């Protein structure tokens, strides 16, 4: 309770400090370059100067925080990836050479690509299907809320939920995990799902698909509703059936949104960490880059060089999407 009080006090203090900064700097700026009550030329000169400075006052705290927490670390990680485990001595590309020859790293890369192929595809697919179906029924919004709900659940919480579903008891005893109960009732042997190499990756992916489908559904549902009525009506008049309308009229009009959903989930997948840590901690050949990186941060007292090298690999995989996003944003701003 005491620390909660401390948190609230900090919050109030933090907000007040921010407010004081913005108010104070603004006041000082107006005092140094006053524009009110001065003669024309001087006033307009002061106004010009203060208008040039003010944006930077507004931006400074945010830019400062982002520089320390995001920009500096990116540069520093790249630098560290060429240094030894304590970050002291330059070792050239040794960390990267180690990485390429390391079986666990190759396993992680392979698994990450599996995740990249499966999760965005399935989540987008289910999201699209559900969005299209729920738009046609009266209880569609209730259905959407329920499917959207896993979005709010933490990856760790979701892992517990699904670990319970995958729970395994020896054959012959009553299964309390749903999946094994279904499997045994169909007459098959129960399986310890998360320990079966290769397939266990898919059981882990199911968790992320379960979480992300709601996200895809919400965005795609909005996009489907944004499709001009006339295009659908014209197709109906031309005698197109439901499937033709969906695949030939609606889908082509929301390609952009599908791409956005796909890339957003792709980025999330590249950083997937909590699920693997909670479900297997990389055992039984389920290792992924983010978990491997976390591992090396602390393994054997922490190897910052190797950890940073793995982080750089994750970053490199993100860069194409980053560039694509920036281009899109720039295009959109020109449109304004």
């Amino acid at each position: 309770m005491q620390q909660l009080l401390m948190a609230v006090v900090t919050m109030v203090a933090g907000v007040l400090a921010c407010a004081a900064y913005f108010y104070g700097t603004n006041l000082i700026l107006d005092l140094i370059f006053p524009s009110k009550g001065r003669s024309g030329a001087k006033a307009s000169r002061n106004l010009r100067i203060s208008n040039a400075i003010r944006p930077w006052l507004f931006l400074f705290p945010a830019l400062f925080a982002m520089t320390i927490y995001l920009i500096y670390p990116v540069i520093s990680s790249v630098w560290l990836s060429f240094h030894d485990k304590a970050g002291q001595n330059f070792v050239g590309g040794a960390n990267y050479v180690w990485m390429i020859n390391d079986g666990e790293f190759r396993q992680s890369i392979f698994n990450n690509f599996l995740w990249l192929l499966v999760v965005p595809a399935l989540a987008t697919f289910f999201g699209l299907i559900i969005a299209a179906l729920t738009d046609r029924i009266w209880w569609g919004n209730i259905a959407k809320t329920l499917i959207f709900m896993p979005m709010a659940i933490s990856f760790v919480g979701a892992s517990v939920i699904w670990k319970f579903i995958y729970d395994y008891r020896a054959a012959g005893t009553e299964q309390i995990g749903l999946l094994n109960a279904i499997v045994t009732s169909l007459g098959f042997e129960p399986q310890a799902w998360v320990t079966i190499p290769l397939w266990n990756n898919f059981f882990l992916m199911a968790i992320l698909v379960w979480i992300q489908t709601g996200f895809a559904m919400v965005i795609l549902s909005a996009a489907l509703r944004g499709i001009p009525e006339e295009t659908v009506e014209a197709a109906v008049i031309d005698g197109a059936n439901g499937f033709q309308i969906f695949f030939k009229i609606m889908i082509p009009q929301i390609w952009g949104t599908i791409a956005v959903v796909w890339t957003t989930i792709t980025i999330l997948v590249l950083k997937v960490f909590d699920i693997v840590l909670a479900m297997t901690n990389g055992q039984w050949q389920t290792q992924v880059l983010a978990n491997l990186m976390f591992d090396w941060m602390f393994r054997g007292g922490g190897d910052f060089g190797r950890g940073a090298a793995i982080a750089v690999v994750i970053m490199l995989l993100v860069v194409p999407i980053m560039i694509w996003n920036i281009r899109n944003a720039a295009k959109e701003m020109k449109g304004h």
Partner: protein
Amino acid sequence: MIASKRSPLVLFVHLSVLLLVILWTIPTAGLLISSLRDKDQLAVSGWWTALSTSSQNLTVRAPGPEAQQQRDGKFVISGNALDNPGAKVSAFGFRTQEPAAFEPGQTATLNDGERLTVQEDGTYEIVSDVAMEGSRGQRIFVQAAVPSRFTFDNYREVLNAEGIGASFINSLTVSIPSTIIPILVAAFAAYALAWMPFPGRTVLIAIVVGLLVVPLQMSLIPLLKLYNGVGAFLGVPAKTYVGIWLAHMGFGLPLAIYLLRNYMAGLPREIMESARVDGASDFDIFVKIILPLSFPALASFAIFQFLWTWNDLLVAMVFLGTGNNELVLTGRLVNLLGSRGGNWEILTASAFITIIIPLLVFFSLQRYLVRGLLAGSVKGG
């Protein structure tokens, strides 16, 4: 739609949506139901059987001969084999090989001539004509139909004994300031990027969009080094709440600025221009006009940031200690998965406590969440 309501296609749509909804809700439902079940029942039967009576095999040992009483010239040991009041005996026995040889009410003759009777309600009597001897009591096997029992015991246990209660407070301590503090910082920056013309603005916006997707993993090691350095320099621990608040603020800012800038840029230009004509400065315009108008976007971001900081595991693992007054819920849950992997009554109850706050936020503020999602995804095409 134009199609008639009775057409098979509409029925098909209803059924498939129903199936998908069931598929998506069953995992969470299973967790909730399990967390409310009696832990002995939870361990032996699936949660989907929670409403039906379950069959349990019990082994009880009757008290030894010292408990015998004389009654009508006979020696009697009595007791009750069931501790659950609603349970019913369906069969009993006294040999391991035949644990269910007798019906309740029947009398079984034991090896040494004693007679054992178990009633349906679990009361048993061992009757002997001569005084019983020996040191150990008779073993009785009972097959009982136990009605389902729901209880809050699991929650009581995890809140107190497993430290979930303390972690709940810790999670709140992390997420409240981490959610509120960045808002004002981001709002000023977003206003500058949306409405104040200055050289380099486009580049800055592009940088913010780029930073949106920088993987957290890139930041961990340098910041850990930085925190260790600062901690050593100031003589304070490197892992503190202040550290994690600032970290969450830094990581949340790109999304906050991006969301708010998009929203503010969409506000009508006329409002600002007429205010400017009236002599209002940028500061006045921002505080008196933009900030109140941007409430929906602020709420969207606050919800995102709250969910993200509450659900976060990675940042807390790296930047916060693991003591009882620092370990957050997600971290505690991961620890429990390791140490209590088979105790589902503990795991399910703990997991439900960790997800209850996000679920409440989700159901009460879903509108803002959806709006934020729609604004936050970089629009394509």
